[in-house]
């Protein structure tokens, strides 16, 4: 496996052998450890010293299902700390099949110049002019790029928001149908890409380099068992293909943890109108697709294609987080408007979660009424045109709160909350506060373990046991994001051998024994690198706190506040 280093300052493209310290790593471990080793922590995230790292998960390109995750890492202009955001689609598989462990993007293009990285099916890489792609939205960018390089290319690109270096800018990547609807959304990494003058990464999907696996037969057997467990599981085998992740709307709303009207309430009266069940029925009635394969190697097919009443494509894939961010969080129960907002965010290249938060703060401050979907659509359109208000929205909830002098801003480290209110799910409070990534749900999703109905053993409305639960899950997830198994395919761990299957695959690929302790050490190594970077960047324990609203405002209907003490928060990562 090789590293590709691309310097935008002098336009040099250099191949390197994977250094010893990076052997056996992929995904988040590679992005975070490279960034931690090579980026000066106090540097300007949008400046010449930051580095943008693309790394497929360690299992990408193998026969294991649902391993098409690409980690993207850098110093975040949004949080000021280290960031890893991962995305599905086709790019990770394509890079792995070209024998590429990581692409490290360095420097900064001359003012006004735009470039793209192109890697052909033989693995020849070049830095080509992308001046003709400037200002294009992502769908148009992909269309033009594929005309130039062929349909058999995976395109990962930024839209106008990334070019303008807005703090919620995403990096969009194409799905199996060639639509840039998959997002590395969090942390403003699209702005880092824009700051470097890199418009796109264009990778042939025809690479044929076999993955490096020392014990092929052992790996294949374990991968097969894992896939069978994913398909046998009710959630990943039945619910996700039918309803997508939007199936979470009703239960999270019932748990009183569906942040509504900028997290003033935990239940949304319009939830039924935007639930996964309603979405699936709407799509089905209109002739869209409720079951859709979005990513290479996927056997779950949780994606969908949302269409208009006349059957025209609106967006893919409408997912739980976006339905919440553009729905309950802004008081909007119009599913068509949510779908339109999802498409606009993908096309302009902004994170739906942070943008929903930004709209919610603006509405809460009195800019518009909650539920005003027309205002929401207009504001998101203004992100692309660069009006003052559009720029504020594109810079996220903290920027909006500052502008309106409004202190109900649901962020940690400047990053907006996800679709689980931390008050009735206090394990999420710990994850939100302490993750090196800012307020992020995927860093340590403990919702099921906070709900007795889902087999959880910790009371979500109480602080007891939450730190240990979040810590263990965050360490586990750091390792999962390293091997690049899709979050929804973790059901494979419910198979007969549980985590043993993953340890077997790690050992088979590495050619040495791999145990549960090794898995934990891997996760800790990643988080340590991230915490150390953040400390060098100036973060202290004081940054691991939730906004006052979560400690002071009881959330209806269960009227609870976060009770995890500062001391307990600080013990989460006492290593």
């Amino acid at each position, binding site marked *: 496996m090789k590293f590709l280093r691309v310097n935008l300052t002098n336009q040099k493209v250099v191949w390197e052998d994977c250094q010893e310290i990076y052997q056996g790593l992929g995904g988040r471990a590679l992005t975070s450890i490279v960034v931690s080793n090579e980026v000066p922590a106090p540097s300007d995230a949008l400046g010449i010293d930051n580095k943008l790292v693309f790394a497929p998960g360690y299992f990408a390109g193998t026969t294991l299902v649902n391993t098409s995750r690409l980690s993207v890492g850098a110093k975040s202009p949004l949080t000021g700390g280290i960031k890893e955001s991962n995305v599905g689609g086709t790019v990770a598989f394509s890079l792995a099949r070209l024998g590429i462990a990581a692409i490290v993007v360095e420097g900064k293009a001359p003012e006004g110049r735009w470039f793209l990285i192109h890697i052909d099916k033989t693995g020849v890489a070049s830095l080509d002019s992308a001046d003709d792609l400037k200002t294009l939205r992502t769908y148009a960018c992909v269309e033009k790029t594929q005309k130039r390089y062929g349909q058999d290319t995976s395109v990962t690109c930024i839209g106008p928001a990334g070019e303008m270096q807005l703090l919620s800018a995403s990096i969009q990547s194409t799905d199996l149908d060639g639509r840039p609807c998959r997002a590395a959304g969090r942390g403003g990494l699209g702005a880092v890409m824009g700051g470097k003058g890199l418009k796109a990464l264009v990778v042939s999907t025809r690479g044929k380099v076999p993955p490096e696996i020392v014990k092929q037969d052992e790996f294949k057997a374990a991968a097969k068992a894992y896939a069978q467990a994913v398909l046998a599981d*009710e*959630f*990943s085998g*039945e*619910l996700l293909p*039918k*309803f997508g*992740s939007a*199936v*979470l709307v*009703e*239960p999270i709303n*019932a*748990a*009183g943890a569906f942040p509504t009207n900028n997290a003033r309430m935990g*239940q949304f009266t319009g939830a039924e109108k935007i*639930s*996964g*069940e*309603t979405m699936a*029925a709407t799509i089905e009635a209109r002739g869209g697709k409720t079951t859709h394969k979005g990513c290479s190697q996927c056997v779950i097919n949780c994606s969908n294609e949302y269409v208009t009443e006349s059957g025209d494509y609106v967006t893919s894939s409408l997912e*739980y987080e976006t339905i919440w961010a553009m729905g309950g969080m802004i008081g909007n129960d119009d599913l068509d408007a949510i779908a339109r907002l999802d498409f606009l965010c993908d096309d302009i290249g902004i994170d739906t979660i942070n943008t929903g938060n930004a709209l919610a703060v603006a509405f809460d401050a009195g800019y518009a009424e909650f539920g005003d979907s027309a205002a929401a659509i207009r504001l998101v359109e203004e992100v692309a045109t660069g009006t003052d208000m559009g720029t504020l929205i594109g810079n996220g909830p903290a920027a909006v709160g500052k502008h309106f002098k409004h202190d109900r801003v649901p962020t940690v480290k400047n990053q907006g909350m996800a679709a689980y209110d931390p008050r009735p799910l206090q394990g999420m409070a710990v994850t939100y506060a302490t993750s090196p990534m800012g307020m992020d*749900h*995927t860093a340590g*999703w403990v*919702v*099921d373990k906070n*709900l*007795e*109905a*889902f*087999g959880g053993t910790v009371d979500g409305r109480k602080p007891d046991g939450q730190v240990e639960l979040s810590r263990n899950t965050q360490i586990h997830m750091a390792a999962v994001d390293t091997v690049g198994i899709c*979050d*929804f395919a*973790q*059901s494979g761990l419910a198979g007969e051998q549980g985590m043993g299957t993953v340890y077997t695959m790690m050992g088979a690929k590495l050619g040495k024994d791999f145990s549960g302790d090794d898995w934990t050490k891997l996760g800790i190594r990643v988080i340590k690198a991230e915490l150390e970077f953040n400390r060098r960047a100036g973060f202290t324990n004081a940054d691991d706190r939730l906004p006052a609203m979560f400690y002071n405002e009881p959330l209806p*209907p269960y009227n609870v506040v976060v009770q995890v003490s500062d001391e307990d928060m600080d013990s989460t990562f006492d290593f």
Partner: protein
Amino acid sequence: MNITLKLYGTLPDHYQGPYDSSGLKIDLVDGATIADLADATGIARQRIGLASINGRLAKAEDTIPDHAEVKFMPSLAGG
């Protein structure tokens, strides 16, 4: 007493009769619990991850009041 039961996820597929999204009108004896209702629908209890009564989380032993809206949801994971 009469209650309305709404089923989510794939639970309608496991209901013993026809189901539409407006829910089922069900007659129950006074004092019936969530567990009694589950048994009355023919849906195996282990399929029901989460239940609510009038928008509040409910447990198997909770009694259902007259005219309540009850929701049954499947067990979930996520992220």
